[in-house]
């Protein structure tokens, strides 16, 4: 369970990242956080994790958290198994080290996520998708009940996006995990999440059940571009997808035309 009670956060440099955010996600819920770049999605995750302390308000989190960062850059070339076993830290005493049991759990976590074959490799030589899955395995090895992921699919190709989403879906169900993740893909949010938090400005946000909140209108408001929710057929049935309209819209063109007009007037 996660509860935000009028939480605000400001960095020392002064600007408010978000103000008076309140929401409640029950145990077992899956929350997707959407918002433009630089809106404070990662900051909010760090507040949940306790890495950052909010300037105002109260956050209550019950259960151990596991974190999958956006990008792990280790300076040292640890092996995949060493990386995953580090997820066991909370269960390992201050002066102790990983025991055979911890290695068994780490290997089990790699199997759960479906990347057991990477176990002998060096973390830094893996591709982006493989790293993401290994980091997910590390969080699984921590035996957390609350999984926090920062843009788990952003750096991945289609196939790996699907692999990560399926792994998350399976894990959340099997282990009754509460999951919070940030994403730039409304489709990934719609696929996995049951709740959504849209962070638009420091003061304006929307929180709610995904079917109610994730509408074309709300997404257009969030990103400032046209968005369409389209239906499609695939080999197994019918699906829906949210599509950002990339073509210049009529309103854009009008603006550009006006400018052209003005230029031509000036030229005359």
């Amino acid at each position, binding site marked *: 369970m996660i509860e935000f009670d009028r939480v605000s956060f400001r960095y020392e440099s002064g600007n408010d990242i978000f103000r008076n955010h309140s929401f409640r996600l029950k145990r077992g819920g899956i929350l997707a956080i959407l918002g433009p770049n630089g809106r404070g999605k990662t900051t909010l995750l760090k507040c949940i994790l306790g890495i950052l302390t909010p300037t105002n308000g109260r956050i209550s989190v019950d259960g151990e958290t596991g*974190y999958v960062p956006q990008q792990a850059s280790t*300076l*040292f070339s640890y092996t995949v198994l060493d990386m995953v076993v*580090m997820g066991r830290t909370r269960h390992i005493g201050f002066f102790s080290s990983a025991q055979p049991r911890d290695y068994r759990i780490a290997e089990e976590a790699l199997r759960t996520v479906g990347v057991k074959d990477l176990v002998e490799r060096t973390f830094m030589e893996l591709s982006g998708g493989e790293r993401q899955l290994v980091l997910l395995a590390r969080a699984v090895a921590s035996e957390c009940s609350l999984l926090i992921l920062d843009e788990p699919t952003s750096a991945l190709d289609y196939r790996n996006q699907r692999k990560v989403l399926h792994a998350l879906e399976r894990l959340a169900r099997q282990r009754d995990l509460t999951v919070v993740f940030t994403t730039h893909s409304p489709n990934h949010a719609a696929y996995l999440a049951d709740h959504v938090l849209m962070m638009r400005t420091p003061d304006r946000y929307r929180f709610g059940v995904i079917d109610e909140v994730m509408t074309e209108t709300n997404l257009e408001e969030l990103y400032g571009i046209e968005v369409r929710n389209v239906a499609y057929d695939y080999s197994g049935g019918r699906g829906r997808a949210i599509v950002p309209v990339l073509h210049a819209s009529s309103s854009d063109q009008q603006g550009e035309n006006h400018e052209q007009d003005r230029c031509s007037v000036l030229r005359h």
Partner: protein
Amino acid sequence: MGVLFQRLLPIEPYWSATDARVVTLIRLPRILLALVSGAGLALSGAVLQGIFRNPLVGPQVIGVSTGSGFGGALAILFFSSQFMMMGFAFVFGLISVAIVFALSRMHGRSPVLMVVLAGIIAGALFNALTSLIKYVADPYDKLPAIVVWLMGSFATTTYKTLAIAAVPIVLAGMFLYLVRFRLNIVSLGEEEAEAMGVNTDRLRWMILTAVSVVTAAIVSAAGIVGWIGLVVPHIARMIVGPDHRRLLPAAAVIGGIYTLWIDNIARAATPAEIPLGIITAIIAVPVFGYLLKRTQAKGWKHD
């Protein structure tokens, strides 16, 4: 060797009584101190490179070496007892860490960069103060003593020096070895470590204090022996990889042997003793250059 084995095995002495005394009273404590100090320096260096995630960090960087150096020089200036010198080196080593602590805490939390910068500031302060002491010291008596001591030497080792230095080195070294798994976590970076439930701030200061104890003990016994803490961890990392559980013992063993070897050169290469700091620097610079090139491929990666 015969002298030492004679204690255990019935060997007929083929050496003179003087030789025996030289070995047991002068050479043996010197050898032991070189081993323990080398191990301590290499261990400290490996630990510091891990917590600062920086391959160019050594015990000098956190300012403790220069602080201890100043303390020792001060003691040579005002007292002539070796015991006072060790005490001063110890106290000022810890003072310099306290300064680093205070400076880097000015912003509440203490990120890694602040600690390094504060270490440079503290180092600069104590370097200046040491220069002041050299400037005011009697140029015929005290000044040479200070200069030679600062360049590092195991030549004056007795069992007393050995005992005073070895106990803190071994105790603090044991602490550092015990937190080896946490070191792996901290080497991933502050935020990841905190997300995994490690109190990085507290752990870092515990580690820094242990490293200061090791360094101050070594400086007080043998002066400033540079470069070992910087170079040996790289060699160890090339051999056993970056995992601190294997790296720390490997660095300690290699550091001990390397330092003993350097000390033998210092003692035997020329009729007079050469200060250790000179040899370590001359050997280390090309080795370090080569290692930097090699370790790009193994052990260290840059993103």
